[in-house]
């Protein structure tokens, strides 16, 4: 497969992981060095790091939905100091570039994270998780293009590393948020994060998840992701990391067709730890099969649509 250029990084292929869906340190405990030999992703995106350590939400944290998963994990992590001291050296041993995902609830918090993480040579790029309530407005920072623009403007000068903004789908106009991030200097955007969702326990008639609501991922959100990625691609020029329910080469192909440069695999890795490797192989055969000279043909396209409807 052809290598991909992304924000100045040369990646071996377009398949990466979504933040918080693959813990390379824990996976190495379970699979040993076989993980490194067959590493499924061309860059590794860390789980979200916050300034202070977080234990995460009280259980239960998971609910299996219709062809999907609702999670309310609550961003457990060791905090910035723990990440830099303990996690970073282990993640630096991975055979691919490292993208560190950070989140803060105020601009100074995010600024401190971006500066500290960006100063480390092991970190190739920084992803901002902006699905966090603004302490003043209560709105998710990423749901409000103005707040998002202010945040990116404030932290952009603090690092020379590529800055990726992870957009939330829980907003009225995701393209407007993407545009705000691009205007203030984001090098890329990634989407979609999970969709806010809830599950009730029939017996108690109360929310099942310890955190109240959670985020929906998996096959159930695939078509939403495709629409949002296409809409963002029409609005911005910066590269896009597309994700949401990707489980096959065809799903990745569709996101690339909608304008993504990279495709992230998330929940499918829960179903198959090496899903990224399989998806990359499937994508490669599609890319070979669907060159422009053979695919721009009305009847051929009709056959594909019918095959999909019949799946």
């Amino acid at each position, binding site marked *: 497969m052809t290598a991909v250029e992304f924000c100045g990084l040369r990646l071996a292929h377009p398949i990466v992981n979504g933040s*918080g*869906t*693959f*813990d390379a*340190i*824990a*996976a190495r*405990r*379970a*699979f*040993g060095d*076989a*993980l490194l*030999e*067959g590493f499924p992703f061309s860059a590794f995106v860390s789980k979200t790091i916050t300034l202070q350590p977080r*234990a*995460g939400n*009280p*259980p*239960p*944290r*998971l609910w*299996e*939905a*219709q*062809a*999907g*998963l609702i*999670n309310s*994990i609550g961003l*457990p992590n060791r905090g910035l100091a723990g990440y830099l001291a303990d996690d970073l050296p282990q993640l630096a041993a991975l055979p691919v570039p490292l993208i560190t995902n950070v989140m803060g609830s105020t601009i100074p918090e995010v600024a401190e994270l971006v500066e500290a993480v960006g100063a480390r040579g092991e970190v190739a790029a920084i992803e901002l998780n902006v699905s966090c309530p603004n302490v003043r407005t209560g709105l998710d920072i990423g749901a409000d293009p103005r707040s998002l623009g202010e945040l990116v403007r404030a932290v952009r000068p603090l690092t020379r590393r590529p800055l990726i903004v992870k957009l939330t789908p829980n907003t009225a106009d995701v393209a407007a948020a993407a545009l705000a991030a691009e205007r203030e200097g984001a090098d890329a955007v990634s989407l979609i994060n999970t969709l806010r969702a809830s599950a009730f326990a029939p017996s108690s008639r109360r929310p099942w998840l310890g955190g109240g609501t959670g985020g929906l991922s*998996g*096959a159930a959100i695939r078509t939403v992701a495709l629409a949002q990625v296409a809409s963002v691609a029409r609005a911005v020029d910066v590269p896009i990391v597309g994700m949401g329910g990707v489980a096959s080469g065809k799903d990745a192909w569709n996101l690339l067709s909608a304008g993504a440069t990279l495709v992230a695999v998330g*929940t499918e*890795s*829960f*179903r*198959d*730890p*090496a899903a990224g*490797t399989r998806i990359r192989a499937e994508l490669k055969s599609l890319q070979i099969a669907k060159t422009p000279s053979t695919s721009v043909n009305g009847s051929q396209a009709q056959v594909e649509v019918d095959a999909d409807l019949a799946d």
Partner: protein
Amino acid sequence: MRVLAPFGRRRAALTGARDVGAYRVLEAADPDGPRPWPGQFYMLAAAERWGAGADERPYLPRAFSFLRATGGTVAFMLEDVGPGTRRLGELAAGDELWLVGPLGIGFSPPPAGARALLVGGGVGVPPLAAWADTLAEQGAAGCEALLGFRDARRAEGARLLDAAPVRVATDDGSVGHHGLVTELLEQALDADPAATVYACGPRAMLEAVRALCAERGLHAQLALEAGMACGFGACYGCAVPLAAGGYARLCVDGPVLDAGRIDAVPAHA
């Protein structure tokens, strides 16, 4: 003890599928898998038609401790309690599974000279049966199992643990002791206060075993269960509150935990 898993899921054909009382036992060919250590688990899904069942589920694989692993096959026991176990229970010899494993950390041997008491019941039988096999192989003396079940049909599951003497308790008195397995455990601990307890079973039973061992200052290892999406530390869903604060991820820090590490067997475990 942790045996590393090959990276990724693999397809495994069932060499056998049979009912044992209320339970279903599946045996899968796993020639490329390592020999697991008792207490470890696998993530299982049917290779075909995993999904579109009741409530449009299952979607994620399900975690099962293995029951037995010999000569390139690995066996599991399950009870139909939801869309995942229902679909797995439909499988017959020749059908195929996706499996990932072995995962997690299994049981640790008892201190030299201490006797192993295996306590559990219901769908908690598999890791105890596997542990009894390994202890017998290692020539450990005096291992005994105490197993509790709701009724006679479920008590047939006790047959799956055949490497140690078994005493059975049933809630309805139809087989063995009429009452709780913890009553058998109290008797056994009165006779041998230095035994090491290994337990796996329904939440209420496991909590009663934990409390009894804590009261007597005994070392116990509990094989816990929690809803998990991945089994290898990725999803952070299987969090169990620790006595020292914070959470353990049951899939990579367990599923076997020293009883002293928790204040209570959690409701959702």
